[in-house]
């Protein structure tokens, strides 16, 4: 009887907790209202994110390596580097992707931190001339796609 009583207590306590805490239907709308990349809030992205992703997918090929370099203080808060990186990795598979933040040392230093040399670079939140790369697409004043000079068109 004791075991049953304890089990009942647990069952009722947990069920009561989840009746209040899970709030299943409410979370459906809240999920879309918030933009935290860790747990599925972004869905399919904003218009700007979509244009960046579509633009990159149009250019890169399966054998390419694309690096996403982004500033921590992105002036365009509508662009999530994490979302773009993950979504690109999904849509453009098997194209390989690397990412790094652009620190105070600048873009060339960020490029050296990458595990492999990219032939495409996507700059998010900062437009700049990068030695060895040429600009091929501009999605916003601060979001640009660069290609390694001398790489096939």
């Amino acid at each position: 009887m004791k075991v049953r009583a304890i089990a009942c207590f647990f069952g009722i306590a947990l069920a009561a907790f989840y009746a209040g805490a899970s709030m299943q239907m409410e979370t459906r709308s809240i999920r879309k209202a918030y933009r935290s990349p860790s747990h599925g809030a972004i869905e399919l992205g904003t218009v700007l994110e979509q244009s960046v992703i579509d633009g990159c997918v149009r250019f890169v090929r399966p054998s390419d390596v694309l690096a996403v370099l982004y500033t921590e203080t992105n002036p365009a808060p509508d662009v999530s580097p994490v979302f773009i990186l993950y979504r690109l990795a999904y849509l453009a598979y098997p194209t390989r992707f690397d990412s790094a933040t652009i620190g105070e040392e600048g873009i060339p230093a960020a490029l050296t931190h990458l595990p492999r040399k990219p032939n495409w670079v996507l700059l998010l939140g900062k437009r700049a001339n990068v030695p060895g790369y040429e600009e091929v697409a501009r999605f916003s004043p601060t979001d640009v796609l660069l290609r390694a000079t001398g790489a096939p068109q």
Partner: protein
Amino acid sequence: MSWFLAAAGILLTTLLGFLIWQIVIAKRPDVWESLAYAFPVGSGVTVIVMLLLALLGLPLSRGYVVGVVLILIVITGIAGTALRKLDRAASNATPEKAGKGLLWWCLLGALLFQIALVVVPIIQERSIGEWDAWAIWGMKAKAFYVDQGVSGYLSDAQTYAFSWPRRPALSSLMEAFVYSCMGRVEESAARVLHVLWFVSLLWTFYIVARRAMNRTAALFWTVVLSAVPNLAFQGNLGLSNVVLGAYLFAGITTLDRWRRDRHARVLVAAAVLLGMASLCRDEGLPLALILIAAFVVTTQSLRGTGLRKAALQATALAIGTFAVKSLWILLVRRYPTGDLMSEWMTLDIFSRAVAHLRDAPAVLRTALQELAVPEHQTQSLHLENLIGLALFWPAFAIAALRLFLVRGRDPFALGCAVTAIAGVLMYTTGFWLFPYQNLADLRDNWMFVMDRQVLCLIPLATYAIAWSISGNSPGKAG
């Protein structure tokens, strides 16, 4: 043409599942029951075939997979015919031919309408939109299809760390199979695949429920299950929680059949189905083990056969379950995918638990503030809220109480209740110890992820509620 090929591929796997189930229940052939289990069994076996091909270093191409599935269909067809000739015992699994009243047909209409509501969003938005659905499961499916194997993706696991490469991927492999049949990546086909698992779950639920209650009551509770908001909402997203729920429920219902039949092949089928559940998600294996333990403890096998024999049966089941899971483990160990368990154990579990305790009131406060925002409340239907929030878990609590206290209870329903409670407890413990970065992260864990995780336990909880209320209704079937 590509959609025709996809349908043909799915039909082949379903036919395989149907034939296998006919053999499993050879002494009690019931076409409707075999049809209910056909897709989960067939797709699970197809995934096992794909894992074996990958382990042998063969490509996961359409030709190889379909070829092996066809061979299996021929073998099971011959074996089924031979078994049927050997044993022509009459079926006692089919319920009596009670007439279906108007209410039954109305409920069927409601169920079909609910299923249609799950399908419509796919027509509206063909692509996989939910983050985890594409970033984890869709990513794997696409990679397995593009590479015609698992090596390309798993050998570069570091690049795709966001998609949790070590996670078992039954649904992704099946999606890859459908892509292979079509010859291209078609996300709406992947979503349709998930609807088939959802429908199979409902069908299995009805088949099992009608053994313990009359047809109308069984269909009523099936409609209730189909209308549990988050379950229906996630029935087409491409996530694996509903798939896990389908396999766990199929596993425990097969165990219940074995309790009554005592045929070794039914026990093997239960172990394989639970093994398939363990291939759906990381928590599939612990949940399957919890289910086995709950079943053995709560059913008559413990009293009827003694503790030692029950322990042996549970061990045999657990070994069978793990044998299926080991196919994925063996495959993943070939690649540098990291060791999640060692990372987990080296983190400071105690400090995490304390931090969780400290932050819980703030998270609750934030959550309540968010729920008070009017536009968040108006976007969901009141009926859905009523079923999903106000009624479901309290109803389960009352049902569990009745199942624990009442005499003459159904051991299977009690097993469902115990598994659901233990599963929720397991998830709660896991979340309590899970690392988080900040309050927003913690809030996401509790509010957005937890309600999704417990989805796999909803069918078990619903059965417990159904039996508690309608279990003694007249017209019981054998």
